[in-house]
């Protein structure tokens, strides 16, 4: 077997050193009744690279790759171009096959990347600090709600109707066990981001308001008044960003005084990958850093006075605090954070701002074109690269029919909010730098034919 270096001669010599006659002598502590006598029946035996590649390629061929068709899906995962060098960098064996940097003297590469990532993310989100990443956006969002509970010592969170329904679902699952009360609502198929309604809900019991920006329908709004209302009631504002490219064009939540900003970093460097692995972003104000979950890298010096980096503030973490830890999290998503960081380094400020502009104006043009399709209404006025259409009938079967025509037309709100009649006609369209005018034209025409 190609991954196993020991030869039978080696094995015999090693057993002799150990003083065991057979390999099974080393498994004597496994109760004999439970010990398997040979390979488990009914499973295939080992296979060559070529055979495995054939099998996996056949499975891959059964999927429609986003890059092979006109493609308009978003809602928490976005198709962007990832420079070739990003993938090369994350495949450097020294990054790919390293462990968590517990021995900092021989892990400065990963640690410096974490430090650079933390700084880039904090600047992008507009927060004082950021951690070295979480599992993904949805788990980062829930961890932020828990953090707000610890800081405010209150357990009532208000979730904005525009928060991604999967994120809401995750929070609901976790809240069953922590006792947090969650105020949730589904969005309405219009252009109202809902700031006033959220402000009206805040009271002296509120731990936090969680608001997605841009929201699940692509809408954006100024969060300043919401932040003020939160702070007037000693509650925290948590902003969730699922499309970080947007922050190249619009004001960051931190600038609008959000206390905690979390997000999904997949857009930059990571790729779609059918939903994972992604990279959760987590930033906050300086004063809350000791309540923050997740890994943190900090600057220090070595014995010779040279600058170096270490994992720090680990007294918050499970391997030190055990049942008193701020979170049970042990892993982060460092390789994806590296991909995101490298992509941000390649873009730089100038590149990110231009990329954001291309996304936005492309989306605006697409909205105008799709508005010409008879029966179709664009409900979004202010948006970044994602907007919502109201079709004259249920969007879900339309999306299925367009898939049969070789167009992946967007995310129907019926998929995200099944059973909600008011949303059933909604279709969320994402446009990025990868979307061509021909793609938009193909969608507009196919949509017109399908709706005719």
């Amino acid at each position, binding site marked *: 077997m190609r*991954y*196993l270096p020991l030869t039978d001669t080696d094995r015999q010599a*090693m*057993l002799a050193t150990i003083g065991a006659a057979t390999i099974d002598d080393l*498994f*004597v502590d*496994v109760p004999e009744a*439970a010990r398997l006598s*040979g390979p488990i029946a009914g499973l*295939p035996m*080992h*296979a060559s690279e070529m055979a495995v*590649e054939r099998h*996996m390629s056949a499975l891959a061929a059964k999927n429609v*790759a*986003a890059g092979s068709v006109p493609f308009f899906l978003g809602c928490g995962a976005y198709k962007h171009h990832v*420079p070739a*060098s990003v993938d*090369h960098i994350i495949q450097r064996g*020294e*990054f790919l*096959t*390293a*462990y*968590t940097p517990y*021995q900092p*003297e*021989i*892990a*400065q*590469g990963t640690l410096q990347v974490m*430090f650079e990532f933390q700084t880039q993310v904090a600047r*992008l989100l507009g927060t004082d600090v950021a951690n070295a990443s979480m599992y993904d956006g949805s788990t980062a969002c829930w961890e932020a709600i828990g953090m707000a509970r610890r800081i405010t010592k209150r357990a009532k969170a208000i979730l904005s109707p525009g928060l991604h329904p999967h994120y809401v679902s*995750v929070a609901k*699952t976790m809240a069953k066990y*922590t006792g947090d009360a969650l105020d949730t609502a589904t969005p309405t198929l219009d252009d109202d981001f809902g700031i006033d309604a959220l402000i009206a809900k805040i009271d002296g019991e509120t731990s936090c308001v969680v608001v997605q920006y841009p929201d699940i329908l692509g809408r954006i709004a*100024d969060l300043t008044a919401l932040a003020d209302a939160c702070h007037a009631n000693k509650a925290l504002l948590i902003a969730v960003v699922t499309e970080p490219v947007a922050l190249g064009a619009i*004001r960051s939540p931190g600038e609008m005084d959000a206390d905690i900003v979390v997000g999904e970093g997949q857009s930059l460097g990571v790729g*779609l*990958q*059918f*939903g*994972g692995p992604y990279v959760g972003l987590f930033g906050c104000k300086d004063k809350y850093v000791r309540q923050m979950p997740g890994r943190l890298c900090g600057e220090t010096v070595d014995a010779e006075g040279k600058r170096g*980096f270490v994992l720090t*503030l680990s007294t918050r973490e499970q391997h030190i605090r055990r*049942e008193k*830890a701020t*979170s*049970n999290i*042990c*892993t*982060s998503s*460092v390789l994806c954070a590296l991909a995101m960081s*490298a992509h941000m*380094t*390649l873009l*730089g400020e100038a590149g990110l701002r231009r990329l954001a502009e291309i996304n936005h104006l492309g989306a*605006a*043009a697409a909205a105008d074109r799709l508005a010409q399709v008879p029966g179709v209404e664009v409900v979004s006025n*202010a948006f970044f690269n994602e907007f919502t259409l109201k079709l004259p009938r249920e969007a879900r079967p339309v999306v299925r029919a367009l898939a049969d025509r070789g167009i992946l037309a967007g995310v129907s709100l019926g998929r995200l909010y099944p059973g909600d009649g008011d949303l059933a006609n909604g279709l969320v369209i994402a446009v990025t730098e990868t979307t061509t005018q021909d793609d938009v034209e193909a969608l507009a025409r196919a949509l017109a034919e399908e709706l005719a």
Partner: protein
Amino acid sequence: MTINASGWRPERPETNADTAPATFTGNRALMLDEPLIFEVGSTETTGVDLAEVPAGTSRLGGLERARAIGLPGLSEPETMRHYTRLSRQNYAIDLGLFPLGSCTMKHNPRLNEKMARLPGFADVHPLQPVDTVQGAFGVIHELAEWLITLTGMHSVAMSPKAGAHGELCGILAIKAALDAKGEGARKVILVPESAHGTNPATAAFAGYAVENIPASDAGRIDTDALLARLGPDVAAVMITNPNTCGLFERDMKTISDAVHAVGGFVYCDGANFNAIVGKVRPGDLGIDAMHINLHKTFSTPHGGGGPGSGPVVLSAALSPFAPLPFVVKQSDGKFALIEEESAGDDHPHSFGRMVAFHGQMGMFTRALTYILSHGADGLRQVAEDAVLNANYILRSLEGTLSAPFAASGPCMHEALFSDDGLAEGFSTLDVAKGLIDEGFHPMTVYFPLVVHGAMLVEPTETESKAGIDQFIGALRSVAERAKAGDASLKTAPHFAPRSRLDETQAARKPVLVWREPVLAAAAE
């Protein structure tokens, strides 16, 4: 460039030992320090050629960014060099043996990486119509079938993002099952004191009181103490098997039966499944839930600290409570996705959703590729070679280092040593740092907590005998120096990119982001 036409060739100098100068750059040939991107990049520079910005009117609703972000850019060659230089300051499996106990740092096959990058897997959106992602569901289903069969369990929840997330999944399923039986009043989870820190953290998160169960002198759970503690208030026990002392819990089945007899559930931390894959099925030991770290047993890369992936196998009793979403194979051979809307009728008891989308698909692809490469026979050989390598290390070094449980019989996948016998003032940390100078990543240190100055060595099955012999020689040499009180160990490592780093200062005055030196000085 020209070649030397004179025919002159350099010769070896008579000696250069004491003539090494301080260099202008501070670098030493291939040992290159690298500044931060904030020190070398510029906000005007970009390494990506983008299209022209199309004409059009902005619809940002007055939210246009006014302030600069402060993101430095580098051109592509500078970017490659920055990260390549940084990468060379890392130790990695690709460079050598990485014997972190309980972490299972095995070779990461590159076929896995190649398969995960097929456009049909890498470039697929999680919300595409299900007819357009049948191959992705096929991967999830096929991997699920393998995991179920290898563990002898009833079902598997695929979506947890990492091991600790999987633990949470298992405990939430247990809580849901107890609630469904009207036994929600059970408030205690028993955890052995040798457990990973995630176990008590997870139990506490789910609202349980954690009670520690002591270890026996032989490095296993004190079974009598555990059985004596069982009662109507116990919701579950969380046991790591093989345990963190590297030993198989012989009484696992007895414990499981006793826990079930009083109405509780058994959670097994599957971090160490690599030792037993293909040799014994946890389902045959009465386990109700166990997470599997795909990044350990099934070779997906650790990437410097994630992403992981932690599917959880479940017993028949817990399966109805599994989280959403999951994939089912229909009678027509097509795969369907069970999520919030479709769960209602057939799966009313699910405890809910743990993550957006479907879990760590990229890790599933890699793990399935690895499993298919090994097959049933190869996976069994994996466990056997992993255990053989660990025992070889244990027996080769027990005369040099104190091995507290060596008399308990063979170890499983990892060998445990203590600091007993090191010279006064010398610690496990010194041994670890000395190993760095020998060109090895140190073993896990100071864990498990049940052994003083623990050194936990897990070689895995992907090391050659020659490589292990060299490691044994190096560890023996360093241990002898620590026993003899060699002062140079106290300042090790001497040859790493950095000497010992001041972690106390880092925690006391945290510097977590880079600031312009002027601003940083003002903040003092």
